[in-house]
């Protein structure tokens, strides 16, 4: 029975390919949360063995199946050719949004010292950023944040995973 549940969790995490909330798993599997946590502990431990290239990570009260970071080099070699690289300007803007989200366009332009309208349209088109609300000031400017696709592309399990910014 327990084996069955483990196998089902493995299948769900694999299929979804992104973080699945603990609450969601509890509902799908119809088991108590405490039992889920217990099983997850065991499962995470099993994946921890050498000879496994995958891991299950607890992320924001949910779980994510992804590759172990030791294999990044070999995986980089096997990644299918990606679409066009982001320009340096796009990367700077994306980094700003990632670290300062939610943030308005005007705030970004103030820090970067240049207009970013076109760059941001491009980032939106690629699904790396999205509108996340409006700022409660005059003019109600749009606030932007990064997307799930952003985490996926850069191999981050959550925003907390962003490397700390260099201190002054």
């Amino acid at each position, binding site marked *: 029975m327990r084996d069955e549940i483990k196998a089902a969790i493995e299948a769900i995490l*694999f*299929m979804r*390919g*992104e973080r699945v909330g603990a609450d969601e798993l509890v509902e799908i599997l119809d088991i108590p949360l405490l039992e889920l946590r217990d099983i997850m502990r065991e499962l995470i431990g099993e994946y921890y063995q050498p000879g496994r290239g995958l*891991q299950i*990570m607890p992320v924001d009260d949910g779980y*994510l*199946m*992804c*590759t*172990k*970071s*030791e294999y*990044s*080099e070999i*995986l*980089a*070699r096997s*990644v*299918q050719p*990606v679409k066009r*690289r*982001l320009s*340096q*300007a796009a*990367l*700077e*803007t*994306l*980094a*700003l949004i*990632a*670290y300062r989200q939610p943030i308005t366009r005007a705030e970004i332009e*103030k*820090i*970067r*010292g*240049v*207009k970013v309208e076109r760059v941001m349209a491009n980032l939106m088109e690629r699904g790396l950023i999205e*509108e996340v609300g409006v700022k409660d000031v005059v003019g109600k400017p*749009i606030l932007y944040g990064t997307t799930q696709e952003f*985490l*996926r*592309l*850069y*191999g*981050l*399990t959550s925003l907390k995973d962003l*490397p700390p*910014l*260099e201190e*002054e």
Partner: protein
Amino acid sequence: MTYLVDIEAFHGPLDLLLFLIEKNELDIYDIPIAFITDQYLQYLQTTGEFDLEKMGEFLIMTTYLLNLKSRLLLPRTNPSQSEDEEEQIDPREELVQKLLEYRRYKEAGQQLQQRELGLTERVYYRQAKGEPDRDEVLVVDLAALVRAYRNVMRRLPVPEPEAIIPEGDVNVSDKMMEILEILVQQKGKISFRQLFANISRRREGLALFLALLELIRLQKVKAQQNSPWEDIQLEMW
């Protein structure tokens, strides 16, 4: 020999400034403003063609640097400052903060790229392909639709000028007269951006800018900026 600098390679004035600071191995906390301003102007003068919108950003930085330079050169004029209030804020402080902040995100952007390429340790998500069909729910927002329409309308191409006038050399002294005339028309006051609003050619923009600097030097025009990065107000003396 003159060489051309590709200003487009720099992502804005801060990027260029950072480049100059690194190239000359300067201490970012103790920037020799006069030196860096000269270098910066030299770069702009030797630049190749670049688009006007971007030039505007570089020119605003130029005026900021020149202003900073003059503030550092001038003796303190405020007599109300008592002697022991020596610890005034360094006028360069704001620029330093700007540069540091910009540099931080520039580096963060490069780190992101390293991650994407797998040069930093990272995890990989499953590249979802051949999924069983998932229901798709379209999330819409009427306000976003209206905004999109306004965006399109705002971006409508400006009609091209009928004929292209050959680029004669623009005379700086003509431009000085022009600025003074405009100022008179505008009751002695105009903002920097307004003054440059109708400039459509690079050489003309540069001539106008040089003319403005000359007028400021001759104390015919006074330039004032209430806070850094804000539009500069030009006034007749």
